[in-house]
């Protein structure tokens, strides 16, 4: 019965811990490693115009949460303007307005964009009703014969679109194409024409305008041109096509800013509107990017995480969360391996202080302090002091020794001086006391065995606790502690032999 309960409990804990962990790691996208970097892009749209002294109303289409990208940290910079964001047909739109303005005006929109495979896109708009007569007269005739040609050469919708694009991009275009595109056609013109033809054919299609997220960190605030491409609805969703090569979908770094063949920005009450887009890559720790992302997608999750704490408290928890790990390691070392140590969790605390001093230096300081403390302790023994005053005396001596050690290393040019102070002196005192008793009661060998065992455990705990990825894991995914708890509970019922039992009962096995 107890066992069933234990297994159920451990199973539930593991399930809860791993579930939350996998959810955060895979769906929210918290990175598993502290080193993972992710690239985010700072994009900016600048609207420049000259106000004519009348009321000004400037609008800009804004990027939405598009599949594969996350848009966050949106800011609008403008002095004196009121700002409203609305949704106009397929686009989000920001409108700046002011009663009166004269002279040069600059309005900014900034946002951070992250490439992410698993963000939640905004609901895709349904394909619009098609069949409107945008094409007329000769254009219509040209379009019809072009489509006849295209259909002949393609089997399905995707092939048809690709073929249409090929026709529109031919070096020696057909007369029909020439007529449709007009002289010196731009890329945008080609897309617009393709959309019109497709819509006329009853195929839902639209123009997508966007920018390329490209460049290096050095290219500070690089201006980038708007590019346009084709989006065709295949019955399930919108599929993008490169209007020059016909490739589908378009490259990952093409970020759709808006939909439609118009201009993304417009102004009333101003002249000479110029819209400048710029993009700048930012290399960021994947963690902060994930946090930014989660702020948008899972605000609740973040509010109840360690990240909601002040930074200084977070730093403390980074260390505290390692203690359970060290404790678990100690369970393994003591109950499965069977190493003897002084004090149950003393090695974990020593390991924590090793984090400050480094391993070898830490061991050296530890051994030195314990050895010096033992000398003093043996001398105190002759004074026949009562137990608690004697412990206090050793504690005072330990603190004094630590201070001396700090001063000495400092004057010798070392910088270990400061970090020594983090050695847990009470634990050290108890270690010295117990060690001295063991020496007297059971001899030096026994004391040395336990002492070495303690150092070994502390070193192993340090090695595990000092792995940056592990520190990262337990801090970002504290729910892993539930899994650790489950494992500890199970080990609590481990009734098999310890590794040291082999040595202990070796004689019985005839070995």
């Amino acid at each position, binding site marked *: 019965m107890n066992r069933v309960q234990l297994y159920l409990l451990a199973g539930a804990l593991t399930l809860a811990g791993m579930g939350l962990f996998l959810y955060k790691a895979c769906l929210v996208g918290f990175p598993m490693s502290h080193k993972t970097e992710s690239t985010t892009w700072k994009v900016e749209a600048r609207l420049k115009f000259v106000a004519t002294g009348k009321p000004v109303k400037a609008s800009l289409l804004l990027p939405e949460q598009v599949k594969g990208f996350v848009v966050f940290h949106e800011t609008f910079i403008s002095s004196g303007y009121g700002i409203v964001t609305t949704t106009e047909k397929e686009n989000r739109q920001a409108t700046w307005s002011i009663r009166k303005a004269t002279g040069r005006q600059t309005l900014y929109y900034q946002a951070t964009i992250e490439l992410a495979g698993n963000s939640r896109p905004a609901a895709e708009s349904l394909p619009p009703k098609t069949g409107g007569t945008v094409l007329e007269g000769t254009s219509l005739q040209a379009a019809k014969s072009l489509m006849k040609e295209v259909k002949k050469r393609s089997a399905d919708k995707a092939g048809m679109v690709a073929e249409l694009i090929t026709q529109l991009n031919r070096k020696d275009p057909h007369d029909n194409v020439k007529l449709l595109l007009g002289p010196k056609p731009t890329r945008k013109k080609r897309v617009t024409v393709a959309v019109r033809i497709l819509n006329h054919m009853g195929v839902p299609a639209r123009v997508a305008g966007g920018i390329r997220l490209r460049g290096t960190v050095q290219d500070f605030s690089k201006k980038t041109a708007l590019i346009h491409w084709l989006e065709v609805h295949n019955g399930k969703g919108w599929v993008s096509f490169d209007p020059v090569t016909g490739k589908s979908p378009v490259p990952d770094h093409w970020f759709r800013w808006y939909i439609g063949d118009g201009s993304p920005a417009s102004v009333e009450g101003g002249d000479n509107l110029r819209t400048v887009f710029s993009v700048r890559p930012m290399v960021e720790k994947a963690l902060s990017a994930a946090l930014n992302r989660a702020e948008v997608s899972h605000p609740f999750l973040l509010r109840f995480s360690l990240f909601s704490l002040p930074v200084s408290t977070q730093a403390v928890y980074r260390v505290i969360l390692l203690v359970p790990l060290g404790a678990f390691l100690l369970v393994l070392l003591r*109950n499965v391996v*069977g190493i003897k140590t002084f004090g149950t969790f003393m090695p974990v605390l020593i390991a924590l202080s090793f984090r400050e001093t480094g391993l070898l230096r830490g061991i050296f300081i530890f051994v030195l302090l314990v050895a010096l403390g033992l000398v003093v302790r043996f001398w105190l023994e002759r004074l*026949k002091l*009562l*137990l*608690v005053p004697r412990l206090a005396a050793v504690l005072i001596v330990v603190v004094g020794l630590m201070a001396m050690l700090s001063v000495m290393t400092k004057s010798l040019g070392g910088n270990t001086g400061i970090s020594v102070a983090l050695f847990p002196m009470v634990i050290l005192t108890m270690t010295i006391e117990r060690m001295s*008793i063991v020496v007297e*009661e*059971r001899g030096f060998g026994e004391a040395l065995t336990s002492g070495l065992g303690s150092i070994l455990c502390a070193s192993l705990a340090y090695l595990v606790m000092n792995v940056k990825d592990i520190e990262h894991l337990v801090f970002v995914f504290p729910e892993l502690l539930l899994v650790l708890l489950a494992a500890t509970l199970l080990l*609590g*019922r*481990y*009734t*098999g*032999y*310890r590794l040291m*039992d*082999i040595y*202990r*009962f*070796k*004689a*019985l*096995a*005839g*070995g």
Partner: protein
Amino acid sequence: MLRILRELKRQGILAINKRNADYTLKYNPRRLYPLVDDKLRTKQLALENGIGVPPLYGVIEVEGQVRQIPEIVRDYQDFVIKPAHGSGGEGILVISGRTNGKFRRAAGTIIGREELNHHVFNTLGGLYSLGGQPDKAIIEYRVRFDPTFEHISYLGVPDIRIIVFLGVPVMSMVRLPTRMSDGKANLHQGAVGAGIDMATGRTVSAVLENDNIEEHPDTGNPVIGVSIPNWVPLLELAARCHDMTGLGYQGVDIVLDKDKGPLVLELNARPGLNIQIANRSGLLNRLDTVERYRTSLGSLSDRVAFALENF
């Protein structure tokens, strides 16, 4: 290594994890521990149950009472001071005689009043107690052991450890102090452990640390084939300790006094596992047997008979 593990398993060697999880935690309710952890309570309980224990001379509970020690031991040439909550034989001071107002320890060294007091102060401070909490010091009768063991022990008092499981004595050994163990009767301190055949009460094997031996390392006398006198009453005494404390799995330490007969020195709720080495045999099979027949084992005589017959 795997071979050793398999062999240990085959022989039914009980190791510490299993002892704790499946025996002490399972059969020894926590609330009963104070009965055996506090030797003073054990002593009182034993007296109430008519079980022989070394007579108590006095108890030192606070530092101020240390002055009363000379008064307490005035009438006795020899005595023992031990912590009420000690474990593993630690902190036991055996005074075997006096010279010029000083005390002679069993090991032969002479200590003064001051050192004696210091030992008591340490004891009161909790130096030897489990968990280091403040303790009491017991001053009691020093056992004059039975001549059976005279030639096979060095200095200290040899004692008989019997593991009693659910009231059935399952395994026993006699622990013989050596020069190496400094007169103490603990195997890990270097005492000789001699396994006793449960049916006959005769020692059949002996170890010193991990080595098989046949003779006492200090006296050279054979330690195998020694018959323990009054074996069956001894088993009964051990089995009665179960009825007295209610602990399912315990170690009973008995000394044979020349004049007073068998005396229970202490009970142990977490008895050690070295007894298996001394007996060259595992405990698990015997414990399993007792668990299987536990319902049919009621009376004291049944249980002792069961042990004599099966182990």
